[in-house]
């Protein structure tokens, strides 16, 4: 099925199940420990052996020698596999660095070998007995130093120019020109990268933890130089991914290598430090924003440049992307430059590009409003646009951004904010409020599903879609239930298996809308088949309360499948509506923060997000997405930073004691409001995504609140107290 024209009325509009705050259908399995994660699966042919990965102890150079003799003699050891004795591996498309290094070392903790043993402890202890000598090479680890040599990009990442930015900026009576930095960040998901792999003949099977089953299958096939049909990937439950698990990682490759070497299933979970330096991260950025306005506050020039780094062959953090679309203004510039760095691989992390881009842009907007003496909400409202500012003939499919700002302001008590910073005190605490826009584009991906109606009237959905904690099981069940006129209890959902039709997968906040659209398409087909089986007119048949009705006839759904299961499979594909209309999601974040005027400790006291993201498929799971994102945003604003050792080229704080993310005590009451919308130009579900929208802008709202509290502007994230302590008011 192809979605080519705006959706008319369809069965989803009934919203009997869709749009309801249905509890997670997999909730009980998770809270009772019955949902198996990658490392825990028992459905494995034979007793698995344990693999422990050895990571490079240097960032750049070569392995001069690797002595495995002692390790091989240790109790329980079955195999030691390294580049020396492994089959030659290919490389997938999506990774920059090789997943098995050696003798060349491309980054710190790059996998160099795996030790396989009967027990985890034996494998780990033998891994520590492998002696590696290195020839240290010289690497580039400092973004600021590499910045002058950073290169322009092409294609989607090329510079953009609209009008005459330089001229208009120079002529603008009010100008802002500031430079900001965002640090390297870690996904820090709870479940580590983990895989159980085994071979049956030339076929490879894995239980793994991955967001994108179809990509993973392809990448495994490319790595092991085998046909994709011979690869079976299953990932039914994923304990968080945040983009880190979009791609094939070393756990799967090393487990498969180990399994081949010892002829048994091998399981590997990467230890926490490997989650940082072995895997991918969100790269640091240096960003410059220039905004020129009229005296009345209309933006006439807006320019955003960003520098980031990655291993040779890698890509940039696309931090300037949202600036192309968020605010009006005739003269525009965006530019990204990419430097080569020999740090671990930079890659996607939740709202890649948007998150750090909006962290910066939305401080710059706050600073510009202050220069204008304007309220930052009003400044944003004044510069709203209903069309793509680079292509005014191209409207937004739906843009209720201003309503988000205004309803949020009213709800939050924004009018109580003092424009002049540092004015509100409660005892030792300085209190401030901040606002920032949330803005993330909608992406649709081809997504297929199979639906089966059995003789007991139960509908089973099969798709390789993943649920990474987001609620996919639930919204897919709701979609099938709505389409087939059933309660959620009559729908079974099976996910995360490469033997199922390929879905959109979970990434880029495309999962909810795309995967449910795929299920919608399959259900449309199933409805036709059911109607035909019952001898009813598919065009007029209605599916209500477990029955199919047409004319004056009605029959139960179960009856239709009595003589045999009815199966339908279909994919949702997308026409060019995304070209004709800019499809995006919007929101506004409001934050109240308190800063201890003595110690500089910051406490976020209240948070509100107002989101406009099309139809909300399930307000409960959607809210969870947004409050999780707001929490991540507080982390990004106040504490999260991978500390780079610029001499040795690695992230030093590579565990959860050193890389701090918010704890419960950091997170105050969070309120989320969804505007009641349905966007008929994006999909038959009329829904968009919220998973990344919720993160975009949060950091800046916190930063702006801290500024409003203290009067000290910090332009380098995270906003830790060492950066403003000395500028706080004198102490008694």
């Amino acid at each position, binding site marked *: 099925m192809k979605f080519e024209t705006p959706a008319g009325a369809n069965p989803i509009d009934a919203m009997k199940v869709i749009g309801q705050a249905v509890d997670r259908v997999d909730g009980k399995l998770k809270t009772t420990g019955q949902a198996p994660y990658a490392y825990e699966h028992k459905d494995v042919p034979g007793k698995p052996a344990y693999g422990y990965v050895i990571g490079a*102890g*240097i960032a750049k150079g070569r392995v001069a020698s690797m002595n495995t003799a002692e390790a091989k003699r240790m109790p329980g050891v079955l195999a030691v596999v390294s580049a020396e004795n492994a089959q030659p591996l290919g490389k997938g498309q999506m990774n920059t660095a090789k997943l098995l290094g050696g003798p060349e070392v491309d980054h710190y903790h790059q996998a160099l070998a795996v030790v396989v043993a009967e027990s985890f*402890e034996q494998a*780990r*202890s033998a891994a*520590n007995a492998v002696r590696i000598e290195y020839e240290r090479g010289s690497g580039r680890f400092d973004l600021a130093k590499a910045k002058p040599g950073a290169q322009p990009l092409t294609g989607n990442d090329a510079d953009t120019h609209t009008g005459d930015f330089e001229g208009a900026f120079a002529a603008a009576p009010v100008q802002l020109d500031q430079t900001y930095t965002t640090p390297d960040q870690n996904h820090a998901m709870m479940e580590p990268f983990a895989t159980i792999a085994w071979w049956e003949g030339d076929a490879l099977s894995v239980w793994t933890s991955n967001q994108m089953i179809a990509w993973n299958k392809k990448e495994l096939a490319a790595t092991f130089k085998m046909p994709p049909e011979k690869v079976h990937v299953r990932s039914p439950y994923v304990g968080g991914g945040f983009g880190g698990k979009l791609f094939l990682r070393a756990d799967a490759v090393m487990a498969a290598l180990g399994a081949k070497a010892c002829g048994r299933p091998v399981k590997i979970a990467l230890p926490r*430090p490997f989650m940082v330096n072995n895997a991918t991260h969100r790269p640091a950025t240096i960003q410059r924003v220039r905004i020129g306005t009229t005296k009345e506050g209309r933006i006439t020039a807006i320019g955003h440049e960003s520098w980031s780094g990655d291993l040779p062959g890698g890509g940039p953090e696309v931090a300037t992307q949202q600036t192309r679309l968020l605010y009006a203004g005739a003269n525009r510039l965006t530019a990204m430059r990419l430097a080569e760095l020999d740090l671990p691989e930079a890659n996607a992390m939740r709202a890649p590009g948007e998150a750090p881009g909006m962290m910066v842009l939305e401080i710059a907007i706050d600073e510009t409003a202050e220069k204008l003496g304007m309220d930052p909400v009003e400044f944003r409202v004044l510069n709203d646009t209903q069309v793509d500012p680079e292509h005014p003939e191209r409207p937004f499919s739906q843009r209720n951004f201003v309503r988000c700002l205004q309803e949020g302001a009213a709800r939050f008590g924004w009018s109580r904010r003092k424009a002049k910073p540092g004015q509100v005190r409660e005892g*030792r605490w300085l209190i401030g409020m901040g606002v920032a826009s949330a803005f993330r584009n909608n992406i649709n991906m081809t997504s297929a599903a199979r639906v089966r109606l059995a003789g007991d009237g139960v509908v089973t959905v099969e798709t390789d879609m993943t649920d990474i904690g987001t609620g996919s099981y639930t919204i897919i069940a709701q979609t099938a239930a709505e389409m087939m006129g059933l309660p959620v209890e009559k729908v079974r959902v099976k996910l995360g298996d490469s033997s199922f039709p390929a879905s959109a997968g979970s990434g880029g906040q495309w999962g909810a809308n795309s995967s449910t659209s795929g299920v919608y398409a399959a259900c449309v087909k199933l409805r036709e088949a059911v109607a035909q089986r019952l001898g009813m007119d598919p065009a007029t048949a209605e599916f209500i309360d477990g029955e199919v009705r047409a004319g004056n006839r009605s029959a139960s759904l179960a009856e239709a499948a009595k003589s045999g299961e009815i199966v339908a499979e279909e994919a949702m594909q997308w026409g060019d509506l995304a070209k004709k209309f800019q499809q995006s999601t919007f929101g506004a974040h409001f934050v109240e923060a308190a800063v*201890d005027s*003595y*110690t*500089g*400790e910051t*406490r976020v006291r209240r948070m509100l997000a107002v989101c406009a993201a099309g139809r909300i498929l399930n307000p409960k799971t959607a809210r969870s997405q947004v409050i999780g994102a707001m929490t991540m945003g507080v982390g990004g604003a*106040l*504490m999260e930073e991978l*500390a*780079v*050792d610029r*001499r*040795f080229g690695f992230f*030093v*704080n*590579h*565990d959860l*004691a*050193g890389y*701090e*993310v*918010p*704890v*419960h*005590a*950091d997170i105050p009451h969070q309120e989320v409001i969804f505007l009641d919308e349905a966007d008929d130009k994006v999909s038959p579900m009329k829904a968009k995504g919220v998973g990344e929208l919720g993160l975009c802008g949060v950091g800046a709202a916190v930063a702006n609140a801290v500024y409003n509290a203290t009067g000290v502007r910090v332009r380098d994230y995270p906003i*830790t*107290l*060492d950066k403003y*302590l*000395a500028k*706080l008011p004198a*102490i*008694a």
Partner: protein
Amino acid sequence: MKAFTYERAKTPAAAAAAVAGHKGGKFIAGGTNLLDLMKLEIETPTHLVDVQDLGLDKIEETAEGGLRIGTLVSNTALAADARVRRDYGVLTRAIVAGASGQLRNKATTGGNLLQRTRCPYFYDTNQACNKRKPGSGCAAIGGFSRQLGVIGTSDACIATHPSDMAIALRVLDAAVETVDASGATRSVPIGEFHRLPGDTPHVENVLQRGELITSVTLPKPLGGRHFYHKVRDRASYAFALVSVAAVLNEDGSGRVAFGGVAPKPWRVEAADAKMRSGASAVARTAFADARPTHENAFKVTLAERTLAAVMQENRA
């Protein structure tokens, strides 16, 4: 983790003898620090002597009017003890500011004093570290040192001692009681218990091989108001950037020890004498010999401002 043998000792002297008698012997109490270090092979004992059956898990009153805290009293039990809460509030506050509820249930009094540094380079066996591998160098100097020490450090090591409890014990003038393999006992004032790194950062305290901590004693209650203010990058479950343990009197006099700044709880008696002159005077004396890195110089300012916050609270 290296393979090791394990025994549970029945008496303190037997425990001490068992460790002294094994070349790679080591005590294990709650295991919350030691096991992590063993997994990373930062500690590689070949024989563990578990001390949990030694009966050293009581808090008793001493003849001098203070308390004797058995080494196996858990951090949770110590913090919750009614006498401690009433008379040694700074200790309760310091303990509950540390780690998490689960960890404090396992963590013991002696183990807490002997927990090792949280310097990230100490934790990464690919990096040079004089504390982990004497003579290998110190990767933290010139590296990521934001969390590390500003005073009492040396050219060999700039790590801090991470304990919160120890900072409170220092301000209370506690003493550490021990027994060795021969059954000989001694009592070491807390201020002399931890050693500064000098050229031997791997030697962290005055304990001899096999010497077992049996208890920690508190002198009779000091009175005054008790404060423990721990500043960190998040609200809970993080080691201190700076912490201030203080016992203050109504007239502003009192005593203070600082955490997060040095290889041992940092207290300078001459600085205590300046309490009535304000935080800045105290900090100037306490940190006169500070030698911070450019990444952690803020800790000196923060120590002063945190003490000022505590003094302000005392006045309020």
